[in-house]
């Protein structure tokens, strides 16, 4: 169980030396208890205390890295069940499943699909993170051959090697030694051998429960840990959406609420379906409900865009407002006569206002001003959406070169600013727009008359 601040304090040197950056050992202990500081900051902590604290302060879901280099992805480290409590930490990995029965040309084609999956959205580069090689052939030859192709042609892409065949496991994992692959396929029957291979080549071991569910899974992870493998991902065996939800929920709860170590590992979910759209929805369930790796059978662009966006939404920090970049956005194809509106850079404000301007079917310029992600009224109240800042932004934005008129439409909620903006923006006229974004289409329509 997690230790309280006072319990941690008893294990610290109690010298108040401040080397950790906190004023007292007690303050440091409190931060440790909240998992907001690392024990490494204390240079004088005893070995005994380090061991005790290390175990207690270890994150409830073990951090695991898949792959190496700039394509490495972190998994685990989650601390909550609901995203409104605290940010979900490490976005789930999407992996394209590749069957070892495919020809080398087909495998290379799939590699290219993964490489070309990068999409830029709201300033983030999103992509298919990994390849899961599947042992559909059942034997070692094709699997080893396919692993070689992946290792040579796509050395940068992290892999999950899915096989229960020991020879295939040995050969393929060896190819990836020191590249942090997942070797998935350990079960009650092959546990010792698979653990040995994972240990030899420093792979993460993927453990699958059969019919025994979470109880069996807990026993298997404990055994594997005793065999010296610490980096583990777990598969409770669920394939139907109902069971995925049940197992993932119970695993996350056990890890976080009970600090139950045998299930404190990232979860791998196999979402493949004949029906591609249904597969997309099962993957969506995995994104929302605690899967750390989701294996897909195909990665069409429309499917990727929807899943990447959902992952981005679910893993957004609920305490930090999503912001959009400060700039003048073009809506439609505005000309030098088109209206200019201004609002703040809270993403929701931007989405709603730009959506309503679009609905008005009037090509426009929308000036979005950096107000640290606050909405209009809040930004105004906090002194971030003021006449002088607006005037400065408009002048520096260079919009004066793109439009002939000098009229700025401001949100109705800050009508009070209109006079002072006109004072500070010489030659400009300020028009007060509607208070709510849904009034924009009517407002724009009335201006056209």
């Amino acid at each position, binding site marked *: 169980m997690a230790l309280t601040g006072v319990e941690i304090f008893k294990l610290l040197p109690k010298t108040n030396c401040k080397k950790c950056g906190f004023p007292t050992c007690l303050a440091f202990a409190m931060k440790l208890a909240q998992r907001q500081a690392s024990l490494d900051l204390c240079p004088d902590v005893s070995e005994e205390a380090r061991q005790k604290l290390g175990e207690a302060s270890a994150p409830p879901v073990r951090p695991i890295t898949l792959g190496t280099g700039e394509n490495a992805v972190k998994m685990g480290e989650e601390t909550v069940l609901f995203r409104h409590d605290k940010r979900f930490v490490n976005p789930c990995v999407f992996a394209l499943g590749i069957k070892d029965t495919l020809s080398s040309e087909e495998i290379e084609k799939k590699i290219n699909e993964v490489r070309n999956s990068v999409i830029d959205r709201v300033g983030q580069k999103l992509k298919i993170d990994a390849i899961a090689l599947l042992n559909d052939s059942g034997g070692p030859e094709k699997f080893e051959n396919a692993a070689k192709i992946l290792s040579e042609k796509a050395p940068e892409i992290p892999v999950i090697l899915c096989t229960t065949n020991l020879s295939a496991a040995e050969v393929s994992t060896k190819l990836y030694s020191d590249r942090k692959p997942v070797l998935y396929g350990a079960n009650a029957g092959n546990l010792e051998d698979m653990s040995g291979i994972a240990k030899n080549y420093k792979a993460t071991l993927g453990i699958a429960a059969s019919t025994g569910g979470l109880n069996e899974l807990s026993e298997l992870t404990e055994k594997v840990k005793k065999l010296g493998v610490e980096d583990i991902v777990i598969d409770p065996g669920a394939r139907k959406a109902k069971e995925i*939800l049940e197992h993932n929920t119970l695993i996350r709860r056990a890890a976080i609420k009970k600090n139950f170590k045998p299930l404190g590992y990232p979860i791998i979910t196999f979402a493949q379906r004949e029906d591609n759209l249904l597969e997309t929805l*099962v993957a969506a369930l995995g994104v929302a409900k605690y899967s750390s790796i989701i294996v897909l059978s195909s990665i069409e662009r429309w499917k990727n865009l929807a899943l990447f966006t959902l992952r981005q939404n679910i893993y957004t920090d609920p305490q930090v407002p999503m912001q959009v970049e400060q700039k003048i956005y073009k809506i439609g194809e505005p000309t030098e006569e088109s209206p200019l509106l201004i609002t703040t850079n809270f993403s929701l404000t931007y989405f709603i206002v730009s959506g309503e301007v679009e609905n008005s079917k009037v090509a426009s310029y929308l000036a979005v001003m950096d107000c640290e992600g606050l909405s209009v009224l809040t930004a105004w109240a906090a002194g971030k959406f003021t006449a002088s800042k607006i005037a400065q932004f408009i002048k520096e934005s260079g919009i004066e070169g793109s439009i002939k008129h000098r009229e700025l439409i401001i949100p109705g909620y800050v009508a009070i600013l209109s006079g002072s903006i006109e004072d500070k923006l010489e030659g400009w006229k300020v028009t007060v727009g509607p208070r709510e974004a849904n009034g924009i289409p009517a407002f724009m329509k009335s201006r056209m008359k």
Partner: protein
Amino acid sequence: MAFIPPKETYPGRVYSVSIGTGQKEITVGGENVLPFHSFEGAFSNRPLIAYEIHDVPPSDWPESVQKPYLDVCANPVSWAKYCQDILNAKAIALRLIGTHPDRENRSSEDAAKTVKEVIDSIDIPLIILGSNHTEKDSSVLIAAAEASKDRNCIIGKAQEANYKTIAAAAIANNHKLIAMSELDINLSKQLNILITQMGFDKEKIIIDPMCSALGYGLEYTYSVMERIRLAGLAQNDPTMQQPILGDVGMYVWKVKETIADEKDVPLWGNTEERGIAWEAVTAVSMLIAGAEILVMRHPKAIEAVEKMIDELM
């Protein structure tokens, strides 16, 4: 270390709400656990998806979602019957968008006539939605509620600015009522309290915490829905135990991702499949977060979400 499944039981329960009449009456809600958590309690009523239709042709819908209805959407009755008889819709959501002053500005009488014609042509439950113009909705929804008297519809949306008249119309004509607020659990709770203070039965309210599309604030709706469910179940808050509605289609089918042609954004893939996936993924997220009723547009998206519900139940 033996594994003991950490199951949760909650003191609260979501109200069971029935809509429609006769054999096609449908009950939603009634669960005492989080969505689809049937491993630890009762989640027996299947969430309901209503097909959205309009009182006027849906000229503002993107092509991909207009296409399935091209032959029927000129007339709300043929549209409704097509959804019920051919697409096997379990419910219809008739949005009286044509009454909006910026649209066709149809009168309350015209709206009432449409409601009457539609409800007389179907036997599945009907949800009647205004145009989201708070002033106009007051008069339109009163007329619509009268035209569908005693058919146990859901009418809405009642908002802070107009809930009194709409709630009164729902009481007088025996309907359920959608209470809509904007992405804030406290506003939602406050509106439910105001409505019940008028003497409206709290078990006849449907909460709409405002939907948002995937990529356009979905995470806010998702978390507000989760928090409403937890307030109702874990804190046993009687003002937060109503079924939740997600008005998915209207938020989804106006974002770039459902409209932009593949020619203009080749990286985004096929336009039609993208739009359908966008609506279906938004819908499933809402179901996982706590929605019991969804209003959707594309038949293929609805079909996929129904299959997903099959897998989850």
